[in-house]
């Protein structure tokens, strides 16, 4: 599904990603772990298409297509979803309006029927119920006045609604207490399927107790220095990043 080859990327002239190669197949969940400053968030932003990052060499192929040639909204419409580490507050835009616009943008892009406000409400209520989110949140402005936990749950709600093929989860566990973490993980696990893939970016092993990855990679200084199965995460937790990166 996703093939990253020798990816180099800079921001403001400073090289952050220094040659990343990673292949993610449908049905697989990969975890990328690493210390602060390793380039984890940069990787997720480059994949989602945020401006300000320059890819200096390498390639990213998504479903056989050059991902880097697509705008962020095209990537989203083609099934990529980035759950933000810090979801953005947007005063003046109601959550329900935002999500309906996003939902219909994707429907339109795929040549499928757009939904009206009533139909959308039905759709979203099924998801909020599953995720234990109060409907009242839909009336509030996007992420404005949300607690850290609410913001992350809102990300998972959007993801459940948009049903992406490739989930990019950037530090989804940060700022969550254990109950919120379980709900978020549960929401993500519901989306796991043989057709979908995921890339979980995390600093701590904690989230991986709830979302069991198929592969774990250690990212340090812009490179993947080690790859393995889920036991690698536990090893990391025990030994720390310094030792693993040096290995």
């Amino acid at each position, binding site marked *: 599904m996703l093939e990253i080859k020798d990816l180099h990327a800079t921001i403001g002239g400073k090289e952050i990603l220094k040659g990343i190669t990673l292949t993610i197949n449908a049905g697989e969940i990969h975890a990328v772990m690493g210390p602060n400053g390793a380039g984890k968030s940069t990787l997720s932003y480059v994949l989602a298409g945020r401006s300000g990052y320059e890819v200096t060499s390498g390639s990213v192929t998504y479903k056989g297509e050059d991902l880097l040639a697509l705008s962020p*909204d095209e990537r989203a*419409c083609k099934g990529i979803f980035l759950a*933000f580490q810090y979801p953005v*507050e947007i*005063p003046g*835009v109601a959550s329900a309006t935002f999500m309906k616009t996003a939902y219909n943008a994707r429907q339109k892009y795929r040549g499928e029927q757009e939904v009206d406000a009533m139909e959308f409400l039905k759709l979203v209520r099924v998801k909020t119920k599953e995720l234990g989110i109060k409907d009242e949140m839909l009336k509030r402005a996007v992420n404005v006045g949300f607690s850290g936990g609410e913001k992350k749950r809102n990300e998972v709600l959007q993801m459940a609604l948009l049903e992406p093929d490739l989930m990019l989860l950037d530090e989804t566990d940060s700022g969550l207490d254990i109950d919120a973490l379980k709900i978020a993980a549960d929401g993500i696990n519901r989306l796991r399927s043989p057709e979908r893939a995921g890339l979980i970016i995390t600093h701590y092993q904690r989230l991986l107790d709830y979302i069991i990855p198929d592969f774990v990679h250690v990212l340090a200084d812009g490179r993947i220095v080690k790859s393995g199965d889920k036991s690698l995460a536990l090893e990391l937790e025990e030994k720390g990043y310094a030792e693993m990166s040096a290995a």
Partner: protein
Amino acid sequence: MNTLTPLAQDYLSRFDTAIGSLPGHQSSLVTTARQTARDIFARQDFPNKRVEEWRFTNLASLTKGIGDDIAEVPSASASIETPHVMTFVNGRFDAGKSSLDGLPDGIRLTSLAAELDAGNDSLINNSADHRAVVALNTAFMEDGYVLDVAANITLDQPLRVRFVSASGSVQNARHMRNIIRLGDGSSLTLLEEHTAEDGHSYFANPMTDITLEDGANFRHYKLQDENLVAYHLANTDCLLKDNATYENFSLAVGAKLSRNELTTTIVGAGATSILNGAYLMRGQQHSDTTTVTNHLVPENDSRQVYKGVLDDDSRGVFQGKIHIAENAQQVSGDQLSKALLLSDRATMACKPELQIYADDVKCSHGATSGELDEDALFYLQSRGIDAVTARKMLIEAFLADAMDEISDEAVKVYFSGIATAWLQKA
């Protein structure tokens, strides 16, 4: 001696002839008022950049004489249904395009020209006003609406007054004088629209004089959608007595150069002045919002929120003065001006000014101008919303908290529709 601007010379040379045919010419009171105003204007000319209150708005392109520029005629982008409509075409009341039947008892909505010609000359009382643009209006006022509301009258549906510039006009200036008085405890909504059905350049110079008696509640909404080669210099003065409420919302999308100057004077306890507005400018448009709020007695409130969206080479000006007199204790005055610059060539000038002579008051002012939030833009795009739609959503959101201040639901929908249509032209 300074030489007067060509446009001022033109006005002054025409004055003696014009005065004989302008409404109220039979009244010595009106004639004296016009002559006094003429003299005030002649001493000042149009304000230039050396006049502090006009530092940011340069009238040079107007005062050299209105050119023969022609603009594309804007098409109506939204509509509103109201039972009562009064229409002025090229500055003159047009009964055929008005529908004023069935107004409730106690509400009179008439034409100023008709009132003056009928000898009701006591309506004109501020001839010594020192402001040049107001003096010009007094000297040359030709028509306008007179709204007189008795005590304790409530009308829920908005009255609508339309000023339309239509083709076939020989004159290119309109000096409208509007006079509004709401009696004790009355409550009313008025929607005032300035639009064009013709692309010729013109100079609109409306002056509106409002008196709100005790407990009156007046919601005054103004749409400025003049054609893009027009000039629009408007003054609105409002006097608030005990427990009166004045709510003004001005939406400006039109004119080459416009200034909306609002002066509220609070002389009553428990009174509230609410001035809000939004201006959406592009191309070479210039929009100036100038407010003066005078708190002359204790225990009353004023607040203002203005939002501007500036694209291309457009220019916005906000000047807001809050004056609190020495004895005016326990007064609150809040003011906020925010501008969104969509182009790096668009500019915004902002001058908040607090003159506080009392010591027990609560005042705030804030002024910001900035670009669209890149993080928010990326967030929306990352959910599949294309860049153009995402920008529109963020601009509408930026305007929303000003628009939400419009307490009349039908007008809010109407103005929001106009703003949305403006965004769609981007």
